[in-house]
Each structure stands twice: as C-alpha cells, then as structure tokens.
C-alpha cells in the first residue's frame, strides 16, 4: 500500500514514514466494474487513491446515458479536498474496471489529528499545496481568456460575473492616500492577549 501512496503526486512532499502512517488510517475498498463510487450531488467527505484498476468520471450525455469525460488511474487521487471541506460530489464516478482503492475521510483525519498530529499537518499541507497549484492554473486560464478575445466584451462580462469596475480617476487620483502605519504588534498583541486571557 505504501508504494502506491508514495507515488501519489499530491503526497510527494510526505516522508516515507508519513506515507506509512497515512496508510495505517486508510480503508481498502473494492469495486466491481461499473459500480457507482460517487454520485453527482451526493455528500462527500473522503478521498480515494486508486491502487489497482481505474475510475471513470462521467456526466449526463446529450440524450440519455453517461459520457466518460476523464479517467483516474493507479496512484491518482480524487476528492482530497472533501476531507477538509465536505461537499456534494460534483460529478459521478464509476469503476471503469474491477478496482481497488484506498479511502481516507474526514473522520480518519480527525482521529489522525489526535493520534499523529504531525502527519495530519503534513497531509493538510499537501492538500493546500495542491489547491494552490490548481488555483494558479485556473487564475492563469482566466487571465488568458480576459486578456484575449474576451477583452472587448468586458462590460457584458462584468454584468454576468457581477464584477464592479471603476477607473482609478474616480478614487485614487482624487484622494490623498495615507501610508500604512508601522506595525504596532507589541501593543496590539498585549491588548488582544489581555482580552483573551481576561475572558478565559
């Protein structure tokens, strides 16, 4: 099991010992070909790592039935964000063939926080890095779209995306902008901690 986890890109920052510890908290799941694993819209609070076989991401077809839009293979992970923020599954996932997967959910993460806090922290860090990477990709894509042929349609887009726009002249140029104050953390911290400790 550990060798599969070791090969998962999301977990590449984990040490061998941390991977081994993660495995200890995972449950082995086996699915027959065609079995439904996640259903679109149903609540989800766990991730799956494919150990053998493959998963199929499907969406409703134009008339009837499903269309496969992606495959998830060995050492690939799905749903890792759901361990931290439970959310309805946003597409349906089936076992493309007979498949074995390792499952790790919110409940296991909570147990791990108590029993192996350093590993739990490393796993959440890995998910944060994965989220940051995806966010950058989405941002870059939005940038490309906005900078390209959509630039001419910005007023229409603004309405659709409820982005408010204004020119700098309406604000920045007509107002003298003060500089940020120097950090005053000793006083601010003392006041804050005084309040917190006073109310404890």
């Amino acid at each position, binding site marked *: 099991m550990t060798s599969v986890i070791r090969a998962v890109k999301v977990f590449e920052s984990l040490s061998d010992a941390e991977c081994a510890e993660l495995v200890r908290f995972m449950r082995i799941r086996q699915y027959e070909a065609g079995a439904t694993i996640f259903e679109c819209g149903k609540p989800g609070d766990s991730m799956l790592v494919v150990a053998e076989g493959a998963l199929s*991401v499907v*969406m*409703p*077809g*134009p008339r009837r039935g499903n*269309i496969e839009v*992606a495959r*998830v293979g060995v050492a690939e992970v*799905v*749903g890792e*964000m*759901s361990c*931290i*923020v439970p*959310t309805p599954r*946003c*597409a349906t996932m089936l076992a493309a063939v007979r498949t074995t997967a390792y499952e790790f959910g919110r409940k296991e993460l909570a147990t791990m926080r108590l029993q192996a806090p*350093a590993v739990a*922290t490393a796993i*959440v*860090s890995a*998910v*944060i*890095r*994965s*989220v940051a990477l*995806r*966010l*950058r990709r*989405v*941002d870059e*894509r*939005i940038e490309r*779209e906005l*900078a390209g042929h*959509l630039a001419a349609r910005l007023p*229409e*887009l603004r309405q*659709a995306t409820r*982005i*408010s*726009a*204004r020119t*700098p002249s309406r*604000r920045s140029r007509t107002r003298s902008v*003060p500089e*940020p*104050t120097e*950090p*005053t*953390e000793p006083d*601010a*911290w003392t*006041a*804050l901690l005084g*309040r*917190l*400790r006073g*109310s*404890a």
Partner: protein
Amino acid sequence: MKASALQELLSGYSNAELDHLRAAARIRHFPAGTWLCREGDPASSCFFIATGAVEMVKFIDGEEHVLATLRPGTLVGQTGLVEDSLRSASVRAQSATTALEIKRRAFQRFVQQGSPLAQHFQEQIAIAGIRQLRTAADQLGLVLAQAVRPSGKQPATVDRRALAFIQAGTGEWDLPLDRAVGAPPAAKKRAS
C-alpha cells in the same frame, strides 16, 4: 483595538499556544485606502482580517476592477504561505483595517508544532483556498460561457456540459483544464 474576529478565532486556546502564534504573526493597522499588498509583488505572507474591510483589486488594461470586498474573519493571500509566487491581485483597506499578518517561514514553524491552534489555523487556510478555488472555477465557467455562446442566448447543451466539466474538474478533481475548451472531446464525438 477592536479585534472581535481575532478574539473569536483565538478564544479557548491555551496561553502557550497564543504565545506561539504571537511569535509567528504581526498585528498590523491599515488606514482606509492603503494597500496590504500589490499585484505582482512577491507573496510570502497572508492576512487574517480582524476588523474593517478590504477590497481585492485587479487592473485590466489600466482599468481598476474591484473583484470582491472582504470582511473580518476572512483570510487573504494564503497562497503566499504555500509557495513562491506573485500576488495575483492587490488588496486595499476599504476602511480602517486591522489584520494579522503571518509570514510563510514563521507559519511553517508554527504549523510544525502540530498544536491544536496551529492545526485549526492550517485548516482555516485550507478551507479558504478551497473556497477560493471553487469560486474561481465558477468564474472561469461564466467567462467561458460568454465565450462560447452568442450574446443573449443560452449556452447549447454541449456547452453546458463543458462548463460542468470545468467546474467538476477544478472544483474537486484535478482534471486537465486544457481539455475544457468548449466541449470535452468525448462529448463532441457523441453529440455529432
């Protein structure tokens, strides 16, 4: 100093944990109109908004766009805690604002302690990132919806499916975004 959001976040934690956080974070005050960070600057910290309000601002073709107004209790710029990157937007105090600024290295040391407060903070940062990713995926879906449909018309069935693909792919699964131009290839085959 008003620090209700901070007080709420930090109440219930031990004195030792609060001292650790104090070592990792600075409390900063920003008068209205001043910048917490600017687009294009190296990102190495995040801000927890304690009081006041901030605006997330982007300049496109020289025109200023306010993307969002963020209230106390919000984390801003959390990507700066994770990796070397540049600020993707500017953040300006809309009104007088107090923020807890956490630098990356200090945060990493804080999290490595694995204390309940550090874990809680880390979870909040993860949640903020995930929400931001989902919002960005929705925004991208809207942008592409405008790109693929004639003005004033609903997207065609195949386009709606492509948008669902984008939102599912970025919202939960790391599906390759480049496949999400118009309709996914598999959908095109079946639709024709």
